[in-house]
């Protein structure tokens, strides 16, 4: 389990593309949108609280692309079957694969929020609530990433699905503009999306000085959705293994 996690982390660190998607592009988006939208009627605090957590959540979902690539490659070159021939259990295999991506997303959230604090004086609110919500966000994106990665047949299919989930979720979940500005139907759809609950949680912590009592439902929804992703991945594993070359 730890062997797979270490190896995956090593490969991830070597992947320059991931660094671009995870850190460089989100920072470019944050800088650009803060510059474009500054000076409008919204207060500066509300603006940075919308944009920095919003784009952090959106780009966190893009980790699903990296997960899809790793799992599909493992399947195509027979690594899944090879690992299945070792004493390692299915749970250990998934945990080993999942952990490095969880770490990457947590580092991503830390870097992007840190950038917000240093450059835009982003207030952070209750640290414990912030940490738990960030863990829940990392948990759901990696949980869904595993479910997607195990169920798609090709990398292209996985990339397309990630874009639908990440961009569609960003649009409807209020990451690009507050849901209050959207029609009522869209506002109702938003509530079915993890992006909405993650952003509302961050807003409660940062804007309203909210604590655990205020974000428990957000945490619960994100964790339950993440667990559902993990279970779907585990249930789909036998088919994934059958599709693996050997």
């Amino acid at each position: 389990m730890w062997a797979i996690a270490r190896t995956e982390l090593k490969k991830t660190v070597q992947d320059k593309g991931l660094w671009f998607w995870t850190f460089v592009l989100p920072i470019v988006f944050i800088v650009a949108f803060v510059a474009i939208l500054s000076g409008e009627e919204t207060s500066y605090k509300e603006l940075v609280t919308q944009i920095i957590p919003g784009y952090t959540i959106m780009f966190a979902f893009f980790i699903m692309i990296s997960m899809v690539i790793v799992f599909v490659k493992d399947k195509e070159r027979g690594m899944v079957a090879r690992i299945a021939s070792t004493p390692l259990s299915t749970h250990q295999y998934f945990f080993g694969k999942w952990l490095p991506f969880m770490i990457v997303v947590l580092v991503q959230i830390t870097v992007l929020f840190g950038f917000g604090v240093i450059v835009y004086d982003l207030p952070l609110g209750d640290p414990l609530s912030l940490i738990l919500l960030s863990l829940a966000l990392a948990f759901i994106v990696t949980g869904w990433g595993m479910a997607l990665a195990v169920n798609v047949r090709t990398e292209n299919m996985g990339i397309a699905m990630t874009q639908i989930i990440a961009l569609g979720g960003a649009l409807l979940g209020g990451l690009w503009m507050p849901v209050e500005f959207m029609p009522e139907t869209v506002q109702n759809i938003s509530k079915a999306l993890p992006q909405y609950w993650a952003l509302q949680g961050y807003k409660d912590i940062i804007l309203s000085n909210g604590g655990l009592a205020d974000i428990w439902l957000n945490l619960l929804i994100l964790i339950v959705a993440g667990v559902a992703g993990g279970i779907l991945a585990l249930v789909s594993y036998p088919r994934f293994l059958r599709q693996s070359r050997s």
Partner: protein
Amino acid sequence: MIDVQHVSKHYGPIHALDDISFQIHKGTCFGLVGPNGAGKSTLMKILSGILLNFDGDIGVNDWKVSKDRTKIKQQIGYIPQEICLEETLNARDNLILFGNMYGLKGKNLQVRMDEVLEQIGLTDRKKDKVMTFSGGMKRRLNIGCALLHKPAIVIMDEPTVGIDPQSRNSIFSLIHQLKAEGSTIIYSSHYMEEVEQLCDSIGLIDKGQLMEFGRMEELLDKHGKPSLFIAGDDIGEKMLQEFGEAEAKGNGYLLNSDEPLLTLEKLVTHCREHQLEPRRLELYQPRLEDIFFNLTGTQLRDA
């Protein structure tokens, strides 16, 4: 001892394996031979613990696959047909990855890595990334990753596909070494010459069924007919009919005879008398490929 007991595997209506039973004795090399789609890979996947759902059972010493899968997996080193390596990492990191999966750590792992790197001839390339390796070197590392934990059973699925003769010889030496150390080897290949050269016993599999199984010499004796091979520009089937039953083979003819030495003598005399000059005239040793053809009516490579 490995005891395969009535193993069947269905993919929907397709019978990939149909009631297969055989035994492999400890310390021997068992060759699994058959054309593509015969069910070889399915059987290899079952033997290596990758395929979980199948009918029947497999006994390994005192254990059963149905009950003691993890214990059995610890005893197995599976070398798949595909090269399963992390290309962006170096040879050493790949060995660490697989060593850890089998529970090797610390100094023990270090010692085994050094031994395996020596065995596969990659000691001086251990810090190089796998992506810089030749096909043969990757194959050898692929094998090395399965040997770190000193498995009692080594399962090799087409380990010599697409490699140069030098690496092939190196792999053969390794197999002889493993046999000498007492490992049981299950070797799947469609290269009949390799199986003949390496294996003590074989199983011929076709369309999911075990067509024949036993010790190599016994099978060759059982199915091989004594015969002669003759080839030459002025040698024809009609001329050979007076010496026995002739059949075309390659660029010559195979002449079946119950008394091959006597027939050989007669043929030599006949050729001298009629001033015929065969390019080849020799006693023909039946090959595995002939047995397979006799049993299935199919040439292995064309199947």
